């Protein structure tokens, strides 16, 4: 059911009293961008992606700490071997970063639309 202008005005008053000035502006604007339109479709949560990236990430961490002596010795040899620590940091940032992003979405923590 489409909200009438009266409904919009009353909503605006309620939000203004609550100090939500941006919402007031959006409400009064109406149209496609306004709040008085259909709500955004609910997206399914990325459980599989979270699990997938989580498994890769935890496996990589286990692999690293199982071989920590070899890894620390090789990664600290200096010269061109700088590619090892920097490359590893990049690799973990992509894999673990993707896991963290999906985990937050799964937990319902998303940016304000």
């Amino acid at each position: 059911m489409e909200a009438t202008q009266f409904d919009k005005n009353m909503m605006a008053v309620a939000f203004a009293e609550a100090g939500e000035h941006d919402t007031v502006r959006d409400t009064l604007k109406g149209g496609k961008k306004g709040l008085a339109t259909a709500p955004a479709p609910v997206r399914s949560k990325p459980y599989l992606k979270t699990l997938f990236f989580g498994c890769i990430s935890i496996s990589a961490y286990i692999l690293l700490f199982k071989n920590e002596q070899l890894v620390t010795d090789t990664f600290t040899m200096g010269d061109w071997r700088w590619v090892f620590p920097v490359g590893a940091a990049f690799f973990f940032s992509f894999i673990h970063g993707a896991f963290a992003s999906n985990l937050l979405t799964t937990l319902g923590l998303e940016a304000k639309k």
Partner: protein
Amino acid sequence: MKKLLLICLFVLAVLPVLTQSAFAAGAGPSKDMLKGIVTQVNGAERTVVFVKDGTKEVRTLVLGEKMKIEDMKMNTKVLINLDKHAGENVMKDFSVMFMDMTVSKLLALLAIGAIGGLLSGFIGSGGAFVMTPAMMSLGVPGAVAVASNMCHKFPKAMVGAYKRWKYGQADIKLGLVMSTTAIIGVQIGIEIQKYILHKFGGAGSNLYISAVFMVVLVFVGGYVFYDAWKMIKGGGEETVSKLAIAMQKINIPPMIHFKTANVTISAWITIPVGVLTGMLAATIAVGGFVGVPGMIYVVGVSAVVASATELIIAFVMGAWGSVQWGLSGLIDIRLSLLLLATSLIGVQLGALGTTYVKDYIIKVVMATTMLIVAVSRGVMVPGYLADVGFTAPLDAGTITLLERVSYWSLLLALCSAGLIIIVAMVKGMSADRRSRKALAGVQHG
């Protein structure tokens, strides 16, 4: 403007090569530092046989006066600082490069990473000022702590910058322009540091760093706090500073338009801000404490865009610094990756948190952090003044007390900032949920 961007990218690519030696001398490990393995210990002569990493050069080193022979550890990678004043092969100190990872140390690193990441995602910088001392207190040698922190910083900044760019907050062009000039600022900062170290020694250098910390943080932090207070009183609306409006009127080519920041300004205004950011990064390791307020009050960018753009600068500078430390082989990747494990979650949480809060909350968090960190450095100044010889020496008990106050106030800065962010986010999220519910009620009623 494409030309200017190409120049920036060219400088970013070429400058590290041109200045590698200068940077390695200043921000990298000292030339008096040796990395390798002790293969033999001779207690009677107080000497050790040392095999240098990489070149496999074998040297016989003599223990310094205050060193104990039983502290020497064989067949594990160590860092040795030489005391060149006492002799070519005399050791000043000795530290094991890789600490044993116990469960409590692992948990401590994860906790520091989480709060540091949250702060970084929210205000664009933060964490570095407490991570290095925290790692050192866990038993990590200073150079390894700095290097490992640097290697954890750039991937965290990259993920945070990407997230905030997706939210339409990060200005890539402004970030690249600022990074380029910040790298030049780092060189200047290093030269000043080297001059002070040469002229006044280690104590003079410590005093200089603490004094800069104090002045910058009290002045800039105090102003940011005052501005946030004005915004709270004025209904939370952010206004462009008078200084920034005046700066935007200066029409000296090349004029650059920053689309996301929605600002057109002369390159000659952004250059000093970038240079000062780099200088501060080379001095106190937290360039963002001047970069973000500089972008807000001098360039005229909103707090949300400035803190997001700072993450691009942190990524570029962190990646460049990590290559330098990687060349010296001082990064303990275990530490970097443990910090990353939680900071990558924290940075994304902090980034999405910015979409729920008013601009002044970012300023409140930044100002609170800066002012508490200023206290932590301020309490160290009497000790440094005594070291330089300006005042009478302090007794050991007072020095220990001051060091404890300094360390705990750093942790307090981190925790209080984390708390403000979480409370503000939870409030913002529940307000958003309430308004959605109210909307759904209107539509279905």
